[in-house]
């Protein structure tokens, strides 16, 4: 066992204090007792702060209050609204599951469900693949590494509406820069109608969402990569592992916890996305790009049917809950 250096130092200090103080030993002890008693009294005064079970609640309280005010209350209100026929300015009355039954009869809604899954699925895969690739590249040593890392965050930092407006121009039917390039390179005879064709419109909104989300994946995964101890790779090198084997057996498993958290966030945010679609297509053409959030917004605000709008957005909840449960369960099992 190592000698406790600190306590030895302490004792030395005390002894030298005593030596310097020119007090008798009894006086010195008396002062010390007094000090202890004072400390005890202070402790009594602030007793409830010292008791961990109370202090814990106090420290957690602000977070809980914020959660209740801004998450739980709106959520409960949303559930209640979805069970009423409330419109703006009218107290709604309870209608049970009528709104949900109505919505399920609407083909626009069914198409929205399909759109949302396609949008979330494809965009998330793209973000994951490109984000991971980018993280692996950025994890290497090269010139201007910091500058590149910082500038890569730009799509993520610029307000979504602004950058999406720029994309809107790039997809413009008449002035699309993509079309200009494709036509001038001789690849196409005439430009594509990016936002006017149902499939191309979906491709377009997915591209923009992925473009915006890739930096988030890349930076988070880069942080994860840097926590992997280099000696694992050295050991693998000794065993003659190739770079794919190293990625598959070391990088990926070690990255899994970070990867899952990033995935959870991304799926939730993409599933509930609003801005990209609202700016680019407003759900068109003929509803081929409507998502839950954009449809709910139109029904709830443009026609004032708050109950029905709430019901549409609540349809997101079971799916998101499932995602969270599965992923949290996985993370817990890993630990």
């Amino acid at each position, binding site marked *: 066992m190592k000698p406790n250096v600190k306590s030895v130092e302490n004792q030395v200090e005390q002894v030298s204090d005593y030596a310097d103080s020119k007090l008798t030993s009894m006086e010195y002890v008396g002062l010390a007792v007094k000090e202890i008693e004072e400390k005890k009294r202070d402790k009594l005064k602030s007793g409830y702060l010292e008791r961990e079970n109370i202090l814990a609640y106090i420290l957690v309280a602000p977070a809980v209050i914020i959660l209740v005010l801004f998450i739980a209350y709106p959520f409960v209100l949303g559930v209640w609204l979805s069970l009423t026929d409330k419109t703006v300015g009218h107290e709604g009355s309870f209608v049970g599951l009528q709104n949900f039954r109505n919505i399920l009869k609407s083909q626009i809604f069914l198409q929205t469900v399909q759109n949302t899954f396609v949008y979330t699925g494809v965009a998330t895969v793209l973000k994951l693949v490109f984000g991971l690739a980018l993280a692996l590249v950025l994890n290497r040593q090269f010139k201007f590494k910091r500058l590149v890392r910082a500038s890569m965050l730009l799509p993520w930092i610029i307000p979504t509406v602004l950058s999406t407006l720029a994309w809107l121009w790039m997809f413009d039917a008449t002035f699309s820069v993509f079309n200009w390039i494709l036509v001038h390179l001789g690849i196409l005879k005439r430009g594509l109608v990016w*936002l006017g*064709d149902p499939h191309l419109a979906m491709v377009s909104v997915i591209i923009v969402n992925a473009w915006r989300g890739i930096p988030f994946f890349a930076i988070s995964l880069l942080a994860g990569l840097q926590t992997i101890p280099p000696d694992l790779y050295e050991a693998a090198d000794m065993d003659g592992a190739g770079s794919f084997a190293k990625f598959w057996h070391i990088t990926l498993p070690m990255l899994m916890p970070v990867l899952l958290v990033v995935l959870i966030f991304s799926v939730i945010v993409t599933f509930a996305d609003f801005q990209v679609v609202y700016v680019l297509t407003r759900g068109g053409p003929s509803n081929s790009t409507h998502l839950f959030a954009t449809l709910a917004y139109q029904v709830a605000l443009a026609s004032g*049917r708050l109950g029905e709008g709430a019901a549409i957005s609540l349809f997101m909840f079971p799916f998101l809950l499932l995602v969270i449960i599965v992923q949290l369960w996985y993370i817990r099992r890993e630990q």
Partner: protein
Amino acid sequence: MNDTNIQANPKQEDKEVTYPGIEGGLTRRQFIKTAGLIAGAALTEGALVATTPKIAVPAVIKGTRLHLLQWSNFVPPADDEIRRQAAEWGKQMGVEVTIETINANDLQARIASAIESGTGPDIVQMLHNWPYLYASGCVDVDDVAEKVEKMYGGFYKQIRDVSFVEGRYKAVPYHIVGAAMTYREDWFKEVGVEKFPDNWDEYRKVGKMLKDKGRPFGQTFGHTFGDAPAFAYPYLWSFGGKEVEEDGKTVALDSKETLQAVEFIVALWKDVFDETGLSWDDTSNNRAFLSEQISCTLNGASIYFVAKKQYPELAKRINHAVMPAGPAGRFHYHVTFEHAIMNYSKNVEAAKEFLLFLMDKPNFYKWFEIAEGYSVAPGPDHENHPLWQKDPRMLAFKDIGKLGHAIGYPAPPTRSASEALSKYIIVDVFARAIQGESPKKAIEWGASELRNVYKS
């Protein structure tokens, strides 16, 4: 300044006496006094009118505040004029008036939160049929609306229909931004067309000639709140198609008239229209027209106004016309603007006075002149205004208001009609057919969605 108003409206009640501008105030009061038309309404105000020789400010509104929320006008100087008028009125009345302008797209969210929280602007500018959507949050304004109605020789049908909710005026009709066929006169002449096509068959014929020369017509069928419904609804009506019967309950889209309209749009799409139109928003056709890609599009006067400022040579080649007629007649759908006073407002009296001031003809017409006919008055009175003599290219907008109908036509423009509009159901029936779905199936889809909306 107000003299014109007096002559035009000798039969005003005493309550109205208190609002107008300083210059004509005295003469005006004397006029009304001598005319002996003071009908006793609110006693205090009556007393004020009878005893004070100068401008009477209703005691109830002096020292109060008034907040008006409206869109940022596409003609910015028009907003400056409103601010100037508000300041002028505020000074006279001792009322602090705030004019707030925001993007038209954000108005509905603001209105909804204002009504739900019971606090916000005293007066809110509404568009389209919003008075129907927010009727329970608005004060009855029959008194103001009826006075304005008299001033402007009645209201145009569309703007009356959206403001008059179940027997009461829930908003005061304000102005109409008319949509007209904006076309290249020079290119039309090149193919031997002197006059804009009067019906859809001619429209198709002319359009085909121009598209063959690489100068198609342009029309959006995307999800965009202005231009898409402004074309789709009146086009459908002109064939005799309708989304719902007059009762506002029985969905009536599935008809041979609708079928005819949808089949014809597929032909138009192929023969006449620029095929990128499915992606267009409200600004795309402006850009396409100004960059000389298309020869005709339905729009407000904004294309012409921009051309006049930036491309004067092009402006000389632009003209406007009403929409072609169909078998069932000629129709239009315009963007209408109304002012509603919210019922949480603690200053309803001042709000009413202020709206009367804004709608007072000298004030309104000053604003109207600044907007150069981009907006027209809610009633036909403006049709005799000298402004229309100034620019023959704007003439089509003069009486376009008469042709306007509200969404849901022939039923009232209810919340369900709004939901149908906001879900772009009518627009999408056409869009689906254009994208290759059979017209019958597209109509069936629309009818089933409409039944869902109308809960029938």
